[in-house]
């Protein structure tokens, strides 16, 4: 069952990543200054966390390898369909993640009004593209709500950027 193997692989790969993380985290902890006057020191707690994470990662890998296969769609056609939907969804979310990073990068240069309008419109388009009114409402709604919440109520000055 290839699909089962896919799921298994997911947890096994995560387990390995976590092991590497635990190793780095634990090694880093060995460089911290030792404690004084009875204090076990700054490195002890992180070292224990690293050991714990390592053990949990091994547990995750082991349970992924021995657990019974999850109930998966057996019909190959429907499974291909499900996979396609999942992939499209992942791409939408990944684009939104990149957009969020771009929003942060442009926030001060463009100012909050322009960047927020662009960001909200773009995220809205990721949800649906069939109705430009919806996109417009999302963009206007985001800017209006932000302005009301932060500028009017919270009295927090937001960067104006190009409009400033």
């Amino acid at each position: 069952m290839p699909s089962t193997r896919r799921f298994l692989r997911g947890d096994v790969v995560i387990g390995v990543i976590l092991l590497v993380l635990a190793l780095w985290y634990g090694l880093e902890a060995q460089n911290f200054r030792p404690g004084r006057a009875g204090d076990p020191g700054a490195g002890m707690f992180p070292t224990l966390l690293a050991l714990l994470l390592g053990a949990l990662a091994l547990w995750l890998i082991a349970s992924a390898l021995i657990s019974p296969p999850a109930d998966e769609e057996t019909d190959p056609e429907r499974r291909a369909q499900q996979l396609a939907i999942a992939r499209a969804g992942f791409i939408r979310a990944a684009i939104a993640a990149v957009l969020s990073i771009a929003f942060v990068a442009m926030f001060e240069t463009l100012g909050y009004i322009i960047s927020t309008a662009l960001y909200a419109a773009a995220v809205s388009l990721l949800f649906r593209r069939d109705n430009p009114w919806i996109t417009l409402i999302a963009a206007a709604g985001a800017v209006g709500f932000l302005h009301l919440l932060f500028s009017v109520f919270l009295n927090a000055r937001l960067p104006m950027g190009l409009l400033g």
Partner: protein
Amino acid sequence: MLAELPQAIGLFASDFRLVGFVCLGVILGVFVGAVPGLTATLAIALLLPFTFGMPALEAVVLMTGIFVGGIYGGSATAIMVRVPGAPANTMTMLDGYEMLKQGKPEVALGLATAASVFGGLVGGVLLILFAPQLARFSLQFQSPEIFALVVLALVAVAAVSQESLVKGLIATVMGLMISTVGIDLAGVPRYTFDTFRLYTGVPLIPLVIGLFALAEVLRRLEEPHSRPKQVAWISFRKIFAFVPVWRQVGWKLPIKSSLIGAVIGALPGAGAAMAAFLAYAEAKRSSPHPEKFGTGIPEGIVAPESSNNAMTGGAFIPMLAFGIPGDAVTAVILGALVIQGIVPGPQLFAQAGDLVLPLMVGFIFAYLVLMIVGLVMLPWFARVAVIDHAVLFPIIAAVSVVAAFVSERSVFAMGTMVAIGIGAWLMQRYRFSLVPVLLGVILGPLLERNFRRALGISGGDPMILVSSWIAVILLVTAAFMAFYFAWVQPRQQRRAQQEQEAARLEREARERQARETEGNTP
């Protein structure tokens, strides 16, 4: 302390601002609770900067109102559109939505409202009666006992918030690891990569926003876009239709469920979802007709709703008595209390009696407000879920990014929020729960501090951690919970799932048969 009760009640009778803040909090809470993806935690985190300049009591009752309203608001969408506003409302959804399908949404909503208020009031009364007693007891809680209590909280959260215990524990450890970033308690910088901003640790508000707002938006984007379902309109004349049904259910079930909820709440870390789950399971176990649960019976709404609301009162007990927040919401409220100069612990009850008691009265008052808000405004609030996702979620995304900026007035905080949001989304994709991460971050310093201090006192001998009965009992409870959720519960769940699956197949077969017969007789 109880002698001052009339005075505290009088405070509410005479201060309109106070009453106003309770109402505002409840309405806001119900609103955010009803929007899937928004939570009371997030609302309180966003409002935190608002409250700095407010008098302590006003700030605290506002947040209590949001907490109370938030837990309840989620049940409306659970019933009306089969989307639980919070995990705590999942059990309500089972029978609530069935009841809606039977054409009785007003009964379902009315029962949910009444059960919430009843549970909340029981929780509030227990809070007033027991918190001062427990606070006195808290002097027994020295470093080893606090260490054990935090371990119990972390294990409980890891266990109940995820289907797989190991993933819950991994999420907890990740949170603990995040909490070690920055200068440690003895002044040693850790995991700062020599970045100035990281010396003070990962900022909490951007972290909360990233975990619960941005990650949710990204998760929603992964699902295929679906138009929100239409919501039935409820006429005002029917808002009391639940009363005869409630009478038929009786008082025993809500009382029992509330007690379960309050006890669960007092256990730090267990949370509302577990309270609802256990009360539902107990109602089903003790019912003469357990097979009817899930088909739209009133007991299936009353039990979880009274329990998860009684939990809120219970959850204040460890927060006020020990300064250990029981869940994400109380953790954020605790932060707000500290800003106001209120320090949990035995001294709180000795010195700030003029604050603690009004707080508790405000808590009970919030439930009375909820009764009215719930019945009058619920039909509208349920419609929040009808807002098109393509409008709702872009606004949530934009507000969360800008809120992160405002919280620290820095682009660094924004970047942290986005990085954590993306990380949280990826974790959630692989079925890691996010609540344990937050609890790990919040409780991490407490855990490390008491651990290191205990070892310092004993000269490095770890036996000090099990040197008192309280510590032993707490650690054994934690171990038992871990065992139960790693071993016993998955088996039970699998069996229950199989039964449900069989029942569903049978019902579908019956419906198909019924349709066919209908088709045959025009």
